[in-house]
């Protein structure tokens, strides 16, 4: 680890962290604020929802969701938070070394007396710190939402903690997959299309899984690995899928280190 690179990288991402955090606070609290009116009409609402086509419910992650309970309602919010977190982590992953190479600052950094492994360590740690700040913001705003809008309803904090604990693994997944993809493709001109593609692609893959025929493609998506509905229903993680998730992250990270250390840094020609 190199403290200078870490500090520099962290600072470069500070604005982005603040913006994502504000977005997540807004989403969480605005959604929570409509919970009291939902809860009042819960029976009616659940009845109406059961008449919707299953594909529509699936698309919004509402299959089997009981919106009359706090945790049921929260699972809905959490899914939105997950999409944001996925795109943010994907952004950092895709941009971790590619931005530097695209803007040709990589020459500056790598000609300093540091090894490539040190550079990647510091960069990853800085990105992880940024993601952790957003993670903590999700924790705080989730609990704040419950406090403010629970309207005296029962609330199982254990399941919520279980959901929130999954975030860190979820973030690492998108960070490392983004990174390895960025090292495999030739040149990334802009990070956002990639991270949006990865985030939404995986979300859609998970949302429609099992709906149309048999496909095991859903097994690769982190949204399925940490499906909030599953976690709430079972009060536990889907262990095999979580292990698969961790395995994908580990393989991506190991591959990233190998690729980065052996990489020819592109230059203008």
């Amino acid at each position, binding site marked *: 680890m*190199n403290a200078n690179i870490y500090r520099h990288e962290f600072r470069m991402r500070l604005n982005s962290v603040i913006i994502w955090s504000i977005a997540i606070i807004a989403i969480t609290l605005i959604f929570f604020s409509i919970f009291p009116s939902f809860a009042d009409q819960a029976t009616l609402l659940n009845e109406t929802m059961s008449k919707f086509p299953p594909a529509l419910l699936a698309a919004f992650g509402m299959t089997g969701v009981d919106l009359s309970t706090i945790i049921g309602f929260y699972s809905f919010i959490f899914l939105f938070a997950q999409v944001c977190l996925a795109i943010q982590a994907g952004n950092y992953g895709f941009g971790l070394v590619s931005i530097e190479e695209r*803007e040709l*600052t990589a*020459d*500056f950094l790598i*000609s*300093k007396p*540091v090894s490539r492994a040190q550079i990647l360590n510091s960069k990853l740690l800085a990105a992880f710190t940024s993601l952790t700040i957003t993670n903590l913001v999700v924790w705080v705003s989730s609990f704040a939402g419950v406090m403010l809008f629970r309207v005296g309803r029962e609330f199982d904090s254990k399941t919520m903690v279980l959901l929130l604990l999954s975030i860190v693994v979820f973030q690492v997944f998108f960070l490392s997959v983004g990174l390895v993809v960025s090292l495999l493709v030739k040149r990334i001109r802009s990070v956002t299309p990639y991270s949006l593609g990865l985030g939404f692609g995986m979300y859609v893959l998970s949302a429609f899984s099992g709906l149309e025929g048999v496909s095991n493609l859903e097994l690769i998506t982190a949204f399925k690995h940490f499906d909030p509905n599953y976690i709430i229903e079972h009060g536990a993680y889907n262990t095999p899928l979580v292990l698969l998730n961790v395995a994908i992250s580990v393989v991506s990270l190991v591959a990233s280190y190998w690729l980065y250390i052996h990489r*020819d840094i592109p230059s*203008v020609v």
Partner: protein
Amino acid sequence: MSIIEVSNLTKYYGKSRGIVDVSFKVDEGEIFGFIGPNGAGKSTTIRLLLSLIYPTSGSAKVFGKDAIANGPEIRRNIGYLPSEVFYYEGMKVINLLKYSASFYNCDCDQRMHELSEYMELELNRRIDDLSYGNKKKVGIVQGLLHSPKLLFLDEPTAGLDPLMQRKFFDLIRKENTRGVTVFFSSHILGEVQRLCNRVGIIREGKIVEISDIRSLQQNNYKKVHVMADNLDPAAFNLPGVTNLQSENGMVRFFFKGDINAVLQKISGVQVDDVTIEEPTLEEIFMHYYE
């Protein structure tokens, strides 16, 4: 002692050529000029020595250590000025220089200010707002501020105005007298001629000549003009003559070898005018490129 020792270094980017079988040595305290046209492999060589890219085959030593295995250690004493200077978005000059200095165990603050003042660089400007020439100055200060023992300058004068170029050359000469070895890559021969002790000429990825700059000019080639009536250019087609041209009773050629052979030829002709001079590096260079 050799500061840089390159042996049979070859680099292919996939199928396209970078450099092929390049070998040379640079001694301590030298200013070594590395010249060749765009795309000849000058930057590739420098980037290999900094392990920004890895060789296909061959090896390179810097300070007597393997350039790849000991990369981070070697780079502690290297200053590098890339040909294209780009820096982090939104950063001020001063922050970039401090970031750069933070990688070296040195208190470079004073030197940073001295160098910036000398190069007339404003420290509080954002790098994005700087012109190409000013960005180049940031690169120069950045490459020098930790007092490196070896400098890699990749086409350093591009974008600098002539006044600034002169200041920059004075700076490099001053560094050199302190014992700093300089590896100076350029396609502008005049500046190499002014600054360097020895030159390597690279063409299409291969070294075509490594020579003392003086011997390259003095011993190797003479530029001969002969003016006479009814001159037959073919008469001068001697061994050692190249670039033979004739127009309006004037014959021009380069000659390498015993100058007496040419003199004998000339003495047999009734000439109007004869000049024998040293070619400029430019002409030698063009000669290598034909």
